[in-house]
């Protein structure tokens, strides 16, 4: 009996290193999956997993990433203002990136974007909280696009898409596959049974920070007239510029 006990203890001790080794290997794989590759040079990227919250929900800090590419593993929730520059591809796959009401996501993507199945960027707020900008090389309108942003399955998109040198494609559809916001691309293709598209009129005043300011309207008020325009009244809080100037100076 004692001999059996001794043999059991010896066997247990011998198996311990293996158990620890297996645990270490699993842990290392998990870290690799979750942490992604911290690449050299200016940007890193790679896989990510586990899913988590991104951003500062208080809104005081903008969370910023510069990645060579991003293969999403697991669901994420953007809870604060976030900017991501992705030099290459964004593969959302079957995962969901949810933008909370406190969050916003500004994406600069230089490669393809692909989402399928239940994969989507689910913006629970207004379209201006998700801005996706293409940084692809310039293409002539008649040239075929080298890059494609493809949303398959039934994922809805609420956001602003500006990819003047890439193709924007939706496959699938139904009411769940609706697009709300604004889309500009080199080619636009709605395949399958595309869902409805709702342009958000609030985007008419959106500033994407692209290009320079130029004169749009010019009005010299007639003599004795200092009435503010509707826009001027909204911005400056006064219906009459004469009284506003008198108040300020």
């Amino acid at each position, binding site marked *: 009996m004692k001999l059996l006990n001794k043999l059991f203890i010896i066997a247990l001790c011998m198996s311990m290193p293996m158990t620890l080794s297996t645990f270490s290997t699993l842990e290392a794989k998990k870290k690799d999956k979750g942490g992604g590759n911290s690449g050299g040079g200016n940007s890193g990227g790679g896989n990510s997993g586990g899913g988590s919250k991104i951003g500062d929900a208080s809104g005081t800090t903008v969370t910023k990433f510069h990645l060579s590419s991003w293969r999403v593993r697991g669901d994420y929730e953007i809870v604060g203002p976030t900017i991501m520059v992705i030099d290459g591809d964004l593969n959302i796959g079957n995962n969901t990136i949810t933008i909370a009401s406190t969050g916003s996501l500004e994406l600069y993507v230089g490669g393809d974007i692909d989402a399928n199945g239940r994969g989507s960027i689910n913006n629970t707020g207004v379209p201006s909280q998700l801005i996706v900008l293409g940084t692809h090389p310039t293409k002539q309108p008649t040239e075929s696009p080298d890059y494609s942003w493809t949303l398959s399955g039934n994922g809805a998109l609420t956001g602003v898409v500006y990819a003047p040198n890439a193709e924007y494609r939706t496959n699938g559809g139904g009411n769940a596959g609706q697009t709300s916001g604004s889309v500009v691309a080199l080619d636009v293709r709605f395949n399958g049974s595309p869902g409805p598209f709702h342009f958000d009129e609030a985007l008419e005043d959106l*500033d994407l920070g692209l290009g320079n300011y*130029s004169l749009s309207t010019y009005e010299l008020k007639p003599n004795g007239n200092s009435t503010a325009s509707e826009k001027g009244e909204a911005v*400056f809080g006064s219906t009459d510029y004469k009284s506003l100037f008198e108040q300020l100076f």
Partner: protein
Amino acid sequence: MNAHTTGPGINGRQGSALLTSVVFSTIILLGIAGIMPMLLNDWKQTARTSLQEAAFTLAESAVDEAIWAVLEHSDDENAWRSAGWNEGGNGNYWYREWTLSALSQSSGEIMELDDGRVGRYRAIVEKVGSSRITIVTQGIVSGGRDVSVGTEVARYIETEFRRPNPAGYGLIARDSLNFNGRPRFDSYDSREFPYIYSYGVNSGNEGVVGSTSTDLSALGLGNAIIDMNLGTGAPDNGQNPAGGASVSGDIIWEFEMDFPEVEVPNTSGWNTTAP
């Protein structure tokens, strides 16, 4: 026999000349009296026009200063303050005043537009943060030889500066637009809160679905229902660009828009590890 002269004597001729000169003088005086108000009016009008033109020129100077500030300082609030601008009460705008004397190279010198005429100009600039910036300026001119004491003239200019906002259109392709099935297009306003969308109830028909391609065949709209405007870069050749689609808005021929280049922000110091 004494010769008798019947013509006027020397006194008579003098009286006649005097009478004539009085008549002429009266006519001239009456003429001058009649012209004087017109001359005075013209003189005043010229003086006032001169004031208004000077005020307009100053208001334009303020527009130039404001544009320069927008391009130079953008959304850097510290830069605006350092440059002498003050923040408006509601936090939406900057304002500032310039006087000609302040622009003088010689300290303490009072610069005048004319003898006794001084001017100043002011600007109020909407803060950068929108694709459209409203600027209102005021040019003020006062005093001078030809106007009454205390006369002041102000002119106002309201301008809007805009930078390209490709998100402000709708669904636009630079080249081909292809729809399968029967997708539906309309607009809504996310600023309305609480927002409960219902097609045909509170949906709008703003915005454009279209292509800037000058080739009409770039539009492949299928059987889409478009409750928006339809744009095509092609000139009107009498064809129906909608094909089998139903369009309730206007057809915009030769549709154009800017496609500004996207510049990647400086990412120095950013997190390079995937989340």
